[in-house]
């Protein structure tokens, strides 16, 4: 059984001329976990991985695998399996011969070639030239190359690129399985939604610097969770909430109540005899948090103070910051009972000094009253996603699991895109992409038939059940 190794990046820096692609990156990747390595395009993910694998020479700092540099590993392919891009193949060579080349180099038995081809589902095309392969098949072949030496460490750059939803699900369960065997699994992505169900730990970098390191659960503040409730008789519900002095916000998909568990709201409504049409827990969008982290609006202690200051003028900041002033503008127009306005929870009060909750709230309000220049960058149609606890995931990651506890749910923007994109692009995002991303990000039973591509307008809460 191959042993997982600790990957350690220490002060890792790569400069190309005056530009720092990676800037004194310190990170640690533990065995037995799937670690997501996230960042927008150009954040330095691939360069960091290539330095770890000895393909790119660091300007300074070190990257080690179990304490050794890659070049010093006695048997590299048996220690680390890496798939960096889907194009590292000679198009004229067959899949089996491609693997045979590297099996020979690593002194692996040739029988291993058929084994890994079977493992990734390419046995039928083993003799076919790689030039005729689709992107998904190339990804699988890249993974087969990585698995050739049965390594204890797997480093995969954008492993789900080009895979169909079924392939993505397969990849996730495979990665989980490999991590449960005690291996170190590091996957990079620029899509948070793509990895957040798979990973146990996250490394987020932006502009070559670490902005977050920790578990997925550490990313969001529990205070940012809220309950969404709706009833056919909204007037009765709002009257009840007013009566109890519970602050709320009325959006198209219902009342959003902060700091109150669904079970409490449900009991309240039941007591008042109000039939509910919708009751669920909703977290602050991880994607919003991610965007704020990479744009520097939000700093996280895990980054060790290396975060880019919020004042740094970057393209991402205006988008992410702009929503902050919106609530006051948007809320009065939206909240039906005027009495509710004074009771509106001021997000800033909940978490002082952090503009985060404010950013999360207007994301939903905006379509109703889009303040000029105040549109948040990503589409944030909320989709409730079951966040299986690690124990649950151990069985079968993509298995349909209903949210067990009200708190264990996240919201994901249905676009799944966590890159910093200008608002205009969000509006014209291709529907097909939305549909795919949603399907990918959500467990089977959560994605219902009405997750139609056209059904992803930014304030549309009906995607969820």
């Amino acid at each position, binding site marked *: 059984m191959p042993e997982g190794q600790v990957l350690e990046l220490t002060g890792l820096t790569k400069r190309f001329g005056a530009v720092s692609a990676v800037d004194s990156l310190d990170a640690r990747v533990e065995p037995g976990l799937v670690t997501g390595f996230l960042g927008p395009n150009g954040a330095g993910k*691939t*360069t960091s991985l*290539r330095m770890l*694998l*000895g*393909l*790119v*020479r660091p300007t300074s700092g070190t990257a080690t695998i179990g304490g050794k540099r*890659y*070049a010093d*590993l*006695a*048997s*590299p*392919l048996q220690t*680390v399996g*890496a798939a*960096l*891009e889907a*194009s*590292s*193949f*000679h*198009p*004229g*060579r*067959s899949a089996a*011969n*491609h693997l*045979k*080349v*590297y099996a*020979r*180099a*690593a*002194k692996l038995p040739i029988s291993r070639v058929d084994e890994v081809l079977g493992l990734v589902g390419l046995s039928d095309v083993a003799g076919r030239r790689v030039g005729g392969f689709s992107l998904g098949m190339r990804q699988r072949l890249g993974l087969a*190359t990585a698995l050739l030496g049965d390594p204890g460490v797997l480093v995969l750059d954008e492993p789900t690129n080009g895979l169909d939803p079924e392939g993505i699900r397969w990849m996730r369960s495979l990665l989980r399985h490999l991590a449960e065997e005690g291996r170190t699994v590091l996957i990079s992505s620029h899509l948070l939604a793509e990895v957040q169900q798979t990973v146990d730990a996250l490394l987020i970098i932006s502009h070559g610097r670490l902005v977050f390191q920790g578990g997925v659960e550490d990313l969001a503040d529990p205070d940012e969770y809220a309950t969404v409730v709706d009833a056919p008789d909204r007037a009765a519900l709002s009257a009840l909430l007013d009566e109890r002095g519970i602050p709320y916000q009325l959006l198209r998909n219902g009342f959003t109540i902060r700091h109150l568990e669904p079970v409490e709201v449900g009991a309240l409504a039941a007591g008042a005899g109000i039939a509910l049409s919708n009751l669920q827990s909703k977290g602050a969008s991880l994607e919003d948090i991610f965007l704020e982290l990479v744009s520097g609006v939000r700093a996280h202690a895990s980054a060790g103070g290396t975060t880019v200051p919020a004042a740094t003028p970057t393209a991402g900041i205006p988008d992410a910051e702009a929503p902050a002033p919106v609530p006051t503008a948007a809320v009065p127009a939206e909240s039906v009972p005027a009495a509710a306005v004074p009771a509106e929870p001021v997000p800033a009060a909940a978490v002082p000094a952090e503009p985060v909750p404010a950013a999360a709230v207007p994301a939903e309000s905006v379509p109703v009253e889009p303040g000029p220049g105040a549109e948040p960058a990503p589409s944030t149609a909320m989709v409730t996603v079951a966040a299986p606890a690690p124990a649950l995931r151990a069985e079968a990651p993509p298995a349909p699991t209903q949210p067990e506890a009200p708190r264990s749910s996240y919201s994901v923007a249905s676009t799944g895109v966590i890159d910093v994109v200008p608002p205009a692009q969000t509006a014209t995002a291709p529907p097909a992409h939305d549909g795919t991303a949603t399907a990918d990000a959500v467990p089977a039973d959560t994605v219902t038939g009405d997750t139609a591509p056209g059904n992803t307008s930014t304030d549309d809460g009906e995607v969820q059940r």
Partner: protein
Amino acid sequence: MSLVAVTRSEYTKQFSTVGWWVLAIVLVVYVAFTAGVLALVFGGVASGRLTGNGPTPQTEGLAGLVYSSASGVGYVFPLLVGTLMVTTEFRHKTLTPTFLATPRRGVVLGGKFFVGIVVGLLYGILGSAAAVAAGAGVLSIFGVDAELGSPDTWTLVGRMLLAFSLWALVGIGVGTVVRNQVAAIVIVLAVTLFIEPIVRTLGGLVSGFSEVVKWFPSAASDALVGKTIFGAMSSGGSGSLDWWVGGLVLLAYAVVFLVIGLFTTWRRDID
């Protein structure tokens, strides 16, 4: 990670794509055609069946001259195949998995070096066989002795095999220095088909110039093989190097290119 494992890997790499046998077929056809035409002309004139312009050449040694066309015109092929062995890796980005499997990059170049010798020998055998078969066949039509039993003929073939292997190594060196595949192919073809023939022709005409020209790679190769059609045509000049010096000069070209490549492109970041 040993050199043996890497050499086996490179061997699999080399013979698992169509490139080598496509070039081999072209080599055989090209050499056979050239040897056949030379045999036809020399054999015809020597035997008196064709009327020549100049003095009638002797039939003795004619066969060797015809057979030497294998390396005389065919050396471009091991040179190209050696160049492609390296530039293909850059072009298709296969250096990434290659260096992941063998992080000690110099060892990879060592593996290519040995496989280059093997491929060069293979091409040498194919090219010599084509030249001998076509040349001997046509010569025998004119009744000229094909000299297949002569030890000189087989010494010539042996030296041609050596020359082919050395040319493959020069090719690997060129590919390591010029990693852009298109640029490398253009350079190889331009030098071998235009620059060297022109310079060597001038070297035969201008006295003193030949002292420099004889150190050119193709001149060294011809010296190694011994007889060449080029040498026979440009009879002027102060002669060529000894055969073993020619071999060492060719090897020196290969080593110099390989060392330059090893300390420049081969050390660069792979992306």
